């Protein structure tokens, strides 16, 4: 009988130990969010069509301000192909560092600079932002969270005005289009 009690005690000990064994990880969650954003950005690159002049050489994706996203994009997509172009990822921490890209992502912390960014890049750069909405950011694609879900808005009018053709996949799946 004593042994029975001993084992029962062990059982309850397991319960207590197990409770502390697997803590929910904010870091893992953060990485998941970054990965998701990266997949969207890669999809934007695949589903937007640039003018002929931009279809040779490497395909540049720039990240302004978000080092973690840059690392994710760099690890996952460098040298993957967009058509026949190899993807190269660039990171810009300061406004004056920003160079020409096919697609430039401006993170939320740098959104205040977006007006200046627009002036420094060519019109054929697909400007992707994460901000309140397309109108305030003035970008062509904007990330927003709707009921916990990462979604995107598309400014088709502005994109087409700048010779960028938004593919059907994006217009179909966008949260909103203007």
């Amino acid at each position, binding site marked *: *009988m*004593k*042994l*029975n009690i001993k*084992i*029962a005690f*062990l*059982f*309850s000990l*397991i*319960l*207590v130990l*197990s*409770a*502390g*064994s*697997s*803590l*929910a*990880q*904010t870091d*893992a*969650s*953060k*990485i*998941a*969010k970054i*990965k*998701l954003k*990266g*997949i*969207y950005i*890669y*999809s934007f690159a695949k*589903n937007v069509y640039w003018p002929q002049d931009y279809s040779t050489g490497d395909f540049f994706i720039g990240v302004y301000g978000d080092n973690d996203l840059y690392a994710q994009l760099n690890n*996952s*997509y460098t040298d*993957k192909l967009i058509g026949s172009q190899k993807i190269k990822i660039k990171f810009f921490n300061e406004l004056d560092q920003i160079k020409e890209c096919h697609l430039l992502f401006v993170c939320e912390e740098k959104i205040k600079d977006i007006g200046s960014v627009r002036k420094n890049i060519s019109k054929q750069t697909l400007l992707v932002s994460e901000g309140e909405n397309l109108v305030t950011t003035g970008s062509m694609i904007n990330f927003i*969270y709707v009921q*916990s*879900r*990462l979604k995107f808005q598309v400014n088709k009018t502005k994109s087409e005005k700048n010779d960028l053709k938004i593919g059907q*996949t*994006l217009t179909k*799946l966008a949260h909103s289009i203007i």
Partner: protein
Amino acid sequence: MKSGIKILLFIVFTLPTALMYSQTNYCPEFMLLIQKYKSKSYNDAKLYLDTVMLKCPDQINSAYYWHLSGVIYYDVFRYVDNKSPISKAREISINSFLQSNKLDKKNKFSVHNNQGLSHIATSYYNDAALILQKEDTVNYDNAIVFYNKYKELKKKIQPDYDFSEKDLSYNHVMGNIYKYKYENNKRYYRSYVDSSIICYNRALDIDSNNFETLYALGILYHNLGVDIILNDLEVDADLEKVIIMQEKAIGYFSDALPYLKKIHGFKPSDKQIVHGLAAVYFSLNDMEQHVKYMNVLRELKNQPPSNK
């Protein structure tokens, strides 16, 4: 345990002569069998049981013969097989005790038979517990077999026994084992997650306020949501797939919340729970709530440790 065995020995050594004469034809081999057992020659005694049956076939209807068979095989299990979980003697001992009970119309052996059965039931429970204690993801199948045998036997000798507490622990630990199994290979062992959730829910069916299980389920659901994005989603996945996977992940994050909220109500100062809640709200992108719980966590960390 020791006192139980003493009682068994008492009945083996004191009853034989009288019973042998009164219940069946005299069987000298039976007396020799008792001697063998008495001298602790358990293997000899075990083999001699067959001789007794051969020489005195009417023993097949003797509750005493089967009682003795149960005792001998139980000791073979204990002393010869060193309580090995794969010992066949244990099963034979059970069948012998049960057969004795069946034949024991005058209830002369049933108390002692049940005592023997109870010890064997405990041995099954201990075998299960030793595996579960290690949260052994390789031999857990044996734990299931042993635990079911324990329950089956215990029900026979104590039909109204309340298994709630043991079932709760068993299901909680099995939930952990299946979870670890999944974590060992998240793609290949995906189905173990369902088994884990089923076991945790069985534990909660017994006690809906069980802190450890509520915590485990809350964390499991949250981590499943993260795993979907980190492990199941290819970096070049189509957007349609991304949207579906994101939906699944959000579903898991939402599932995690009620469990963690409930135990936060039980232990508002538990840092792990507050951290868990902050993580879930972060995943749900409810940054207001995330910041709220991160601030709670910061305050808790700044509090001096209690004297308890």
